[in-house]
């Protein structure tokens, strides 16, 4: 009798703290979005609703350049990282342990273990030397650096997908005289696609979000959207920066939601 009213899972006050946590998680983001519709010249005054700062940001050529640069770098880095990570995942799964396998895991996941600022200054040291030696100071350095730290993120879902995959279909293909390439192209790859898409999206978001490594590796005039914003935040800020952040926020939320549903449909 008593049992049916007594919830063994409940703990007093936990619901309230949870409420506070979600309030705390979303209030700052809400404040940022609301202020981006501020009609006033400065963040410290509220002059009624307006979309003027979105218009201003849209026509700001520095913002346009930074946004395009961010996208170019993220697309290249995500593509290269996914490509390399897919091959690495094929090479490190579905096999008996062999000498060097642990080394491969450790190396591939290394960018996750070291604080970003440390990698950033190490890259600054090396790339600044190479820039002097070769005279090349293009986007290649940023693409290279981004690819490296995107690889573990792309690798994770692809490897998970491979490990949970059924081997029988590939065996059947081999029984039907398919070559190794044909088996890969027509059986393994289609089965692997959800993992590859997930890996690409993760890598893309991670590259798009990067501030620290980009800030140290970029040459003059190579601001991405996050480093542009970092530079602006230090100066006197207008709601324009809120407008940029709001659009950025909306885009990454859409990506995460898509990612969530792609993953859910799979399972």
């Amino acid at each position: 009798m008593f049992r049916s009213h007594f919830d063994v899972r409940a703990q007093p006050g936990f619901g309230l703290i949870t409420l506070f946590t979600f309030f705390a998680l979303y209030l700052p983001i809400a404040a940022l979005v609301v202020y981006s519709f501020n009609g006033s010249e400065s963040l410290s005054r509220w002059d009624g609703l307006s979309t003027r700062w979105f218009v201003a940001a849209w026509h700001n050529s520095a913002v346009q350049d930074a946004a395009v640069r961010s996208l170019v770098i993220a697309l290249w880095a995500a593509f290269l990282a996914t490509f390399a990570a897919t091959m690495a995942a094929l090479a490190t799964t579905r096999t008996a342990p062999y000498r060097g396998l642990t080394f491969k895991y450790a190396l591939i996941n290394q960018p996750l273990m070291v604080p970003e600022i440390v990698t950033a200054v190490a890259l600054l040291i090396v790339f600044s030397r190479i820039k002097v030696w070769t005279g090349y100071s293009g986007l290649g350095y940023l693409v290279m650096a981004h690819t490296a730290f995107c690889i573990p993120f792309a690798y994770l879902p692809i490897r998970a997908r491979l490990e949970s995959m059924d081997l029988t279909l590939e065996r059947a293909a081999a029984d039907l005289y398919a070559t190794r390439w044909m088996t890969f192209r027509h059986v393994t790859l289609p089965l692997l696609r959800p993992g590859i898409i997930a890996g690409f999206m993760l890598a893309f978001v991670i590259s798009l979000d990067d501030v620290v490594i980009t800030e140290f590796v970029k040459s003059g005039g190579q601001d991405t959207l996050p480093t542009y914003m970092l530079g602006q935040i230090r100066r006197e800020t207008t709601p324009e920066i809120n407008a940029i952040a709001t659009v950025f926020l909306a885009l990454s939320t859409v990506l995460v939601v898509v990612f969530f549903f792609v993953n859910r449909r799979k399972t």
Partner: protein
Amino acid sequence: MASEVERIGRERERKDIRDRWLLSAPALVIVFLAAVGPLFVMLLYSFMVKGDYGDVRPGEFSLEGWVSVFFQRDIFDDTLGLADAHLSIIWRSIQLSFLTTVLTLILGFPTAYFIATRPPHTREIWVFLVTIPFWTNLLIRTFAMQQVIRNEGLLNNALIWLGVIERPLQIMYTDTANLLGMTYVYLPLMVLPLYASIEKLDFRLVEAGYDLYATRFQVLRRIVIPLVRPGIIAGSILVFIPSLGAYVIPRVLGGGKNMMLGNLIELQFGAGRNWPLGAAMSITLMALVMVALIVYVRNASRGGAGHV
């Protein structure tokens, strides 16, 4: 015949392993060139002599970089004293990271517990709501925190409106700002692993506790917390390590007077023009992270063995 078959088998295996090395080569080479290799170069730089305008003097080696992480030379009599400025920033970084871990745990544990005890279908939505801020750009979240705590921000306006204070509280550019920012940004990193381990909790054990007349608090302290300890440790390490290396948050919220180790490192490569010192500091930061990881591995393995 048997040996022939064996030989072919072994050869095939060897070829397979060689193919696997070739296949993983691009990833390994990229990570080595643009992540691991530069760390070795940096180690080398930490033992070199600083150049007059940044960088280092080629071919000259010294321990000066490492010495000046911890000590400073007196300008008059050239004696070594402790480098108070550096040590206090290192100590501040450790303290703030520890406090951040504690705060995220205080908020994160009840939240994770609450989510894990919802019906399975709603759980997914709650977890998703934690994931969205997690995937939001770190800089944007830091900037969002600034909107709340700056002098004309949400918090001060609300407190003034409520009549609690008359003049705005100066939170920006203090250690409190750093602490609030890091707690806000790293909170999802605490909630997610905690949730994963609480979700697996066997509530029959909790029920048994109540049958033996335990109070709610006793059940929490003596049954739940010991059982989800691996999750607590994992969450703590996931918060502590990035806090230790925080760069963006103290730069935006803390300002120049409340630097953390990450900003001190940047300073050596910028205005400080002391690359060997910056390199040595970076390696010190890495060493601190390694210590935290070793503590984690030790605890995790002990915790695992204790509950099987």
